[in-house]
C-alpha cells in the first residue's frame, strides 16, 4: 500500500516537473519545421539542409523588404475614408450570394462593399461604400464626375470581409480585410446604374462531402476562409521542431537500424510525462485502482459517473466500443463498462468491469461478455488497461474531437457566414477562430492516417461515429457536469468557469442590447444555418424496430448514457429540416426581434453564446492539456490495443508487446500527444492576439485563487480551439 502523504507529495512534484514549458531556443542553421500545415505523420516538412536554411533566410529577408515596401506604399498612399464627389447620381449595383451549388440563392448580407479609384500618381480615392442588404443586394451611390475624372486611372469594386476584432484599451475594433476585387473599366461608367449582377463568393462554404458540418478549405495556404495568426505559427514551430526531430530519428532507426530502438528507448526520447514520473517514485501506483479513480474523476477523461440504479454509492462509467461502426480486425475496441464505488473520502474505486465484444482475434461475437472484478488479480490489471485505453480513445474521439473540435466548427461556420454587424460577432469570433483550420489538418493527419492505423475504427467508421456523437451535442439547456462530491474538482472547476462565463456573456449582451436587437436578423440567419446544417439527433434517422434486439439495447443504452454525459436535453422540442430531426436547437425563429418574448429571446441567445465559448475554450483546453498525462506513456495508455496472436488477446500484461502498438505507431502516438498538449497558443489571460474581451480576463483573474484550489491554472485556458 502507498502512504497517502507520500502519494500526494510525489503526485504534486511530478505535476510540477512534467508541466509543459516553452523553452526551445531557435537559432540559425538549426532544423526547423515549415509550419502547422506541413505536419506529416511520417516525416513532416523540415528545413534541415544549411543551403535550404540560407535560402529560407534570404526569402525571409525578401519578405521583410516586401512587407516594408508595402507598408511604405500604404503610408505614402493611404486609403482615406473621405468620399470623393458630392452629387451621388450614379450607382454600382449587384447582388452577393454564396457560390456553393446548393447556396447560390442564399444572399450574403451585411458585407462591406466599397468603390475605389486610383489616380495616375497612385493615390487612392474612395467613391462610395455600402453594406449589402438582407437579400444580398447592394447599391453604391457615387458621383459620376468624380469617377470619370481624367486623373483617375481605374475603378475597382471591393468586397471586404469582417475577419476579426481586437481590443485597444477597452474598446473593440473590427478588422476588415479585402475579400474580392472587381475591376470596372472607367469608360463603362456612364451614369445611372452599372450592374455587377450576381457576385458569387466562395465564402465559408459548407462541404458537401462530409457527414458533419465542415467548411471548404481548398488550399490552407492560399485559399482558406481563415489563416493562422503568425504568432500561432511561430509558437507551434518552436514547440514542435524538437519533437518532430525525435520522431524522424525513430523513423530512421526503424528503417535502417531497428536493433537500436526499443519501446523503452523510444519512450525515453520523449519528454517524461506524469505517469512515468510517478511510476519512477512510486512503482505500480499509476496502475492502481486508486489512481484509476483519480484519473477518471479529475484527469483527462473527467468521466461521467452514472448512478447505479440498485447500488447506492456506486456509479458506472461507460466507454462504447466499435458498436455498429466500420472497423478493422487488428485492434480490439470492446465496449467497456466499469462500476465504481465511492470510498469514504469520496474517491471512486473501480470494483467491477464488463467488456462486451471481441477481446481476441478468434472469437468475433460482438456481444460476448467478459466480467472482471478487483478480485481477479492480474486479469483485473490487464482488463483495467483495456478500459483505460478505451477510455482514452473514446475521450479523444468522442469528447475531444467531436464534442469540442467538430462541435465548435459548426458554430464557427454559421457565425462567420452570418454575424458581421451584430455585436455577438465581437463576442464569439475570438473564440471560434482557427478551429476550422486545425480540423482541416486533423482530417488527413488524425482521421485518415493515424486513428485508422492505431485503433479499431476505419475512416468510414470514424465518420459514422463522429456524426452520431455530434448528434448528441446541443446548447439548449446544457449545463456543466454535476460534481459528485468535494473532491470532484474537475466538475467543480467546470461549474465555476461556466458561472464566470455566464455572467460575462450576460453583461456583454446587456451592454450591447440595442445593437443586438437592431441586427437580430443576423442571429436568425446564424441560427438557421446552424440548424439546417446540423446532423440529426443520434438514432433519430434509424428505424429501431429493424435492429436486432442486442443492437437495439446497445443503441438505447448509448443514447441514454450520452444524453447524460453530454447533457443533451431530450425533452427539448427540436426541429425537423429536410426530413431530419436536427440535433442543434434554433436560437430564434424570426428575422426581427420578438418583442413579445423579449426575455426568452435574450435568454436563449445568452445560453447559446455561453455554451459556444465554453466548448471552444474550457472544455477543449481541459482534454487538450491533460492529453500527455494520459497518453504520454505507451504501455500505460494508447489509442488502441491489438488483439495479438494469443488466445488471451488483450487481457495480457504490458510486457506483451504484441498487443501494444508497434514502435513506429508508438512514436507517432507520443509525437501526437506532445503536439496536442505542448503547442497551445492564444490563452485567454495572455491575450496573445489582443482579441479577448478584457472584461472576461478581469473576471477570470478575480477567480484565479478559486480555480487554483481546484487544480486549474486560469492562465492555461485557451481562448480558442486551435490545436
Amino acid at each position, binding site marked *: 500500500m502507498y502512504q497517502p502523504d507520500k502519494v500526494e507529495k510525489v503526485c504534486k512534484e511530478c505535476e510540477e516537473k512534467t508541466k509543459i514549458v516553452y523553452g526551445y531556443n531557435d537559432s540559425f542553421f538549426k532544423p526547423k519545421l515549415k509550419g502547422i500545415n506541413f505536419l506529416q505523420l511520417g516525416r513532416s516538412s523540415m528545413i534541415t539542409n544549411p543551403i535550404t536554411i540560407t535560402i529560407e533566410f534570404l526569402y525571409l529577408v525578401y519578405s521583410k523588404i516586401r512587407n516594408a515596401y508595402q507598408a511604405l506604399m500604404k503610408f505614402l498612399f493611404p486609403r482615406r475614408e473621405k468620399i470623393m464627389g458630392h452629387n451621388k447620381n450614379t450607382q454600382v*449595383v449587384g447582388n452577393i450570394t454564396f457560390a456553393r451549388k446548393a447556396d447560390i440563392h442564399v444572399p450574403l448580407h451585411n458585407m462591406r462593399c466599397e468603390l475605389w479609384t486610383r489616380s495616375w500618381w497612385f493615390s487612392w480615392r474612395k467613391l462610395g461604400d455600402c453594406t449589402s442588404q438582407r437579400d444580398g443586394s447592394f447599391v453604391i451611390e457615387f458621383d459620376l*464626375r468624380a469617377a*470619370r475624372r481624367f486623373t483617375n486611372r481605374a475603378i475597382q469594386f471591393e468586397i471586404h470581409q469582417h475577419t476579426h476584432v481586437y481590443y485597444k484599451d477597452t474598446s473593440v475594433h473590427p478588422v476588415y480585410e479585402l475579400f474580392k476585387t472587381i475591376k470596372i473599366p472607367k469608360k*463603362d461608367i*456612364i*451614369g*445611372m*446604374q*452599372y*450592374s455587377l449582377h450576381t457576385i458569387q463568393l466562395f465564402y465559408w462554404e459548407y462541404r458537401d462531402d462530409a457527414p458533419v458540418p465542415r467548411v471548404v478549405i481548398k488550399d490552407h495556404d492560399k485559399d482558406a476562409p481563415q489563416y493562422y495568426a503568425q504568432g500561432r505559427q511561430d509558437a507551434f514551430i518552436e514547440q514542435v521542431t524538437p519533437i518532430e526531430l525525435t520522431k524522424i530519428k525513430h523513423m530512421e532507426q526503424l528503417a535502417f537500424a531497428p536493433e537500436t530502438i526499443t519501446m523503452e528507448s523510444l519512450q525515453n526520447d520523449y519528454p517524461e510525462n506524469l505517469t512515468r514520473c510517478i511510476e519512477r517514485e512510486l512503482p505500480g501506483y499509476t496502475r492502481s485502482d486508486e489512481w484509476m479513480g483519480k484519473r477518471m474523476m479529475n484527469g483527462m477523461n473527467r468521466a461521467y459517473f452514472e448512478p447505479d440504479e440498485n447500488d447506492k454509492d456506486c456509479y458506472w462509467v461507460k466507454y462504447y466500443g466499435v458498436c455498429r461502426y466500420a472497423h478493422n480486425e487488428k485492434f480490439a475496441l470492446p465496449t467497456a463498462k466499469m462500476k465504481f464505488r465511492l470510498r469514504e473520502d469520496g474517491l471512486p474505486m473501480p470494483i467491477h468491469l464488463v467488456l462486451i465484444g471481441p477481446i481476441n482475434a478468434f472469437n468475433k461475437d460482438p456481444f460476448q461478455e467478459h466480467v472482471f472484478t478487483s478480485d481477479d488479480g492480474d486479469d483485473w490489471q490487464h482488463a483495467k488497461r483495456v478500459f483505460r485505453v478505451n477510455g482514452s480513445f473514446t475521450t479523444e474521439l468522442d469528447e475531444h474531437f467531436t464534442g469540442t473540435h467538430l462541435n465548435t466548427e459548426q458554430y464557427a461556420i454559421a457565425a462567420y457566414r452570418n454575424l458581421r454587424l451584430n455585436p455577438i460577432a465581437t463576442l464569439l469570433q475570438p473564440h471560434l477562430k482557427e478551429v476550422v483550420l486545425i480540423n482541416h489538418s486533423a482530417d488527413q493527419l488524425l482521421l485518415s492516417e493515424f486513428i485508422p492505423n492505431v485503433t479499431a475504427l476505419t475512416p468510414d467508421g470514424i465518420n459514422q461515429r463522429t456524426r452520431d456523437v455530434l448528434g448528441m451535442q446541443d446548447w439548449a439547456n446544457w449545463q456543466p457536469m454535476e460534481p459528485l462530491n468535494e473532491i470532484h474538482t474537475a466538475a467543480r472547476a467546470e461549474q465555476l468557469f461556466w458561472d464566470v462565463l455566464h455572467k460575462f456573456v450576460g453583461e456583454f449582451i446587456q451592454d450591447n442590447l440595442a445593437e443586438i436587437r437592431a441586427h437580430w436578423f443576423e442571429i436568425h440567419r446564424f441560427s438557421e444555418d446552424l440548424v439546417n446544417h446540423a446532423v440529426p439527433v443520434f438514432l433519430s434517422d434509424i428505424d429501431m424496430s429493424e435492429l436486432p434486439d442486442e443492437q437495439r439495447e446497445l443503441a438505447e443504452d448509448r443514447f441514454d448514457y450520452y444524453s447524460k454525459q453530454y447533457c443533451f436535453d431530450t425533452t427539448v422540442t427540436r426541429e425537423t429540416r429536410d426530413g431530419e430531426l436536427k440535433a442543434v436547437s434554433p436560437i430564434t425563429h424570426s428575422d426581427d426581434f420578438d418583442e413579445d418574448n423579449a426575455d426568452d429571446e435574450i435568454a436563449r441567445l445568452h445560453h447559446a453564446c455561453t455554451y459556444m465559448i465554453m466548448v471552444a475554450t474550457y472544455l477543449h483546453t481541459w482534454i487538450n492539456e491533460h492529453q500527455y498525462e494520459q497518453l504520454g506513456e505507451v504501455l500505460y495508455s494508447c489509442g488502441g490495443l491489438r488483439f495479438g496472436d494469443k488466445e488471451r488477446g488483450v487481457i495480457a500484461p504490458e510486457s506483451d508487446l504484441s498487443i501494444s502498438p508497434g514502435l513506429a505507431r508508438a512514436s507517432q502516438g507520443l509525437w501526437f500527444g506532445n503536439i496536442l498538449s505542448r503547442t497551445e497558443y492564444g490563452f485567454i489571460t495572455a491575450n496573445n492576439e489582443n482579441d479577448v474581451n478584457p472584461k472576461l480576463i478581469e473576471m477570470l483573474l478575480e477567480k484565479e485563487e478559486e480555480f487554483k484550489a481546484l487544480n486549474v491554472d486560469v492562465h492555461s485556458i485557451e481562448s480558442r480551439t486551435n490545436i
Partner: protein
Amino acid sequence: MKPEKKFSMYRVFINWLKSTWDKFYLWFFCRFFTFFIAIALGLRGIRMSHNNGIAGKGRLKIVDDLDLPNNDFFKPGHEFNIRVRHASATFLDDAMKVIRSCSIKFSDHHFNSPFDIQLNSGNFGVFWSAISFWKFASSRAEKWGVDWVKYNHDYPQGSKGAQLGVRRHATSFHNVRYYSQSPYLFITTEGIKYYCKYKVRPFEDVAETGIDPNPSVIDACNQRILPHETRGRNFLKDEYEDRINREGAKYRLQIQIRMASDDEDPEIFNNMTPWDEERFPWKELAEFEVSEVLDWDESCRTTFSLKHMPKSLGIIPAKSVYDYNSMNYMRANTEFARKVRLFAYRVFGPPKPIPDDDNRNVT
C-alpha cells in the same frame, strides 16, 4: 448649415475652367460623332437607326381649348401642314421585336420646317446621355438579330428601356403610343421657363398593341422574329398604307408641362424617369391626321431635326456629355450627317425598297 467649401476666387476660376472644358468636350464629342455618322452611314445613304419606315402627310390643328401657358408657337386653333414618319428601329423587318417611332414635321417639306419632333414607343429610354449613347452605339455587336448583350448586361436601366420600349407584333403603327422621353424647353410669351414632354396617341381610345406581356432580362437582347413567323418583313408598313388609303390615321399630340426652378433636380431631365402623371398630367396640344402616304423615295428623303424648333420650344442646354440633356443636344447637332445623307441620295439615289423576301432578322 455651413457651406461645404469656402468661397474663393480660385474656386470660382477652377469651376469655370471645368465647366468650359465640359462644354467644349461636349461640343467636340458631338461634332466628332456627327462626322463619324456622316462618313460611315450618311455617305452610304443610311440613316443612323430608323431606316425601316413609311411617311405620310396631312394636317395638324392646335386644339381650340388649349390649357397651356401662352406660347408664341402653339396658338389655339392654329393649323399646319405636316409630314409624319413611322419607323421600326434598326432592323429591316417589321416582325422583329423593335422600338417603333413617330416623327412629326410641321411642314410639307422633306427638310425645312418650323418645328420637328421625334418620338419613340415606350415611356422609358434605352440610353440617357451623350456618353451613354456612345456606349450603346459602340457595344451593339449584332449577330442575326441578337445584340447589345454587354450593354444590357451592364446597365439595368438600359435593359429595362429595351424591354419596355419594344413593340413586337403591333397591329398598326397607328395604335402605338409614342413619347419624346427627354424633356424640352417651353418658354411662355411672357418669358417664363417651363419644361415639357410630348406624346402621340391615336385619336380614338384604342388599346395599344405590341407590348411584351412578359418582358424578361434574359431575352432582352434577342430581337429576332419568332419561330414560324408568318408576318412579312413589311407587314406594318403595308397595314399603314392600307389604313391611310382606306380611312386615314388620326392622332392626338399631347404635352406634359412643368415649371422650371433655379435649383432643379437633374433627375427631372432624365429620360429614364417619367414624370408623375398625376402631378403633371398629359394635356391635349393638337390633333392631326395623315391622309396620304408618300412614295418610298420621298419617304426616305423626309428627315427630321431637333434644330427645327422655335426659340420658345428648343432643346434644353446641356453642360457636359454626362448631362441628361446632352441626348437632345447631340440629336440636334447631327444635322450635318442628315445633309450628307440627302446629298448621297442626290448622287447615288435613295436606297431600294425593302423586299418581301425571306431574308429575315437583317439590318
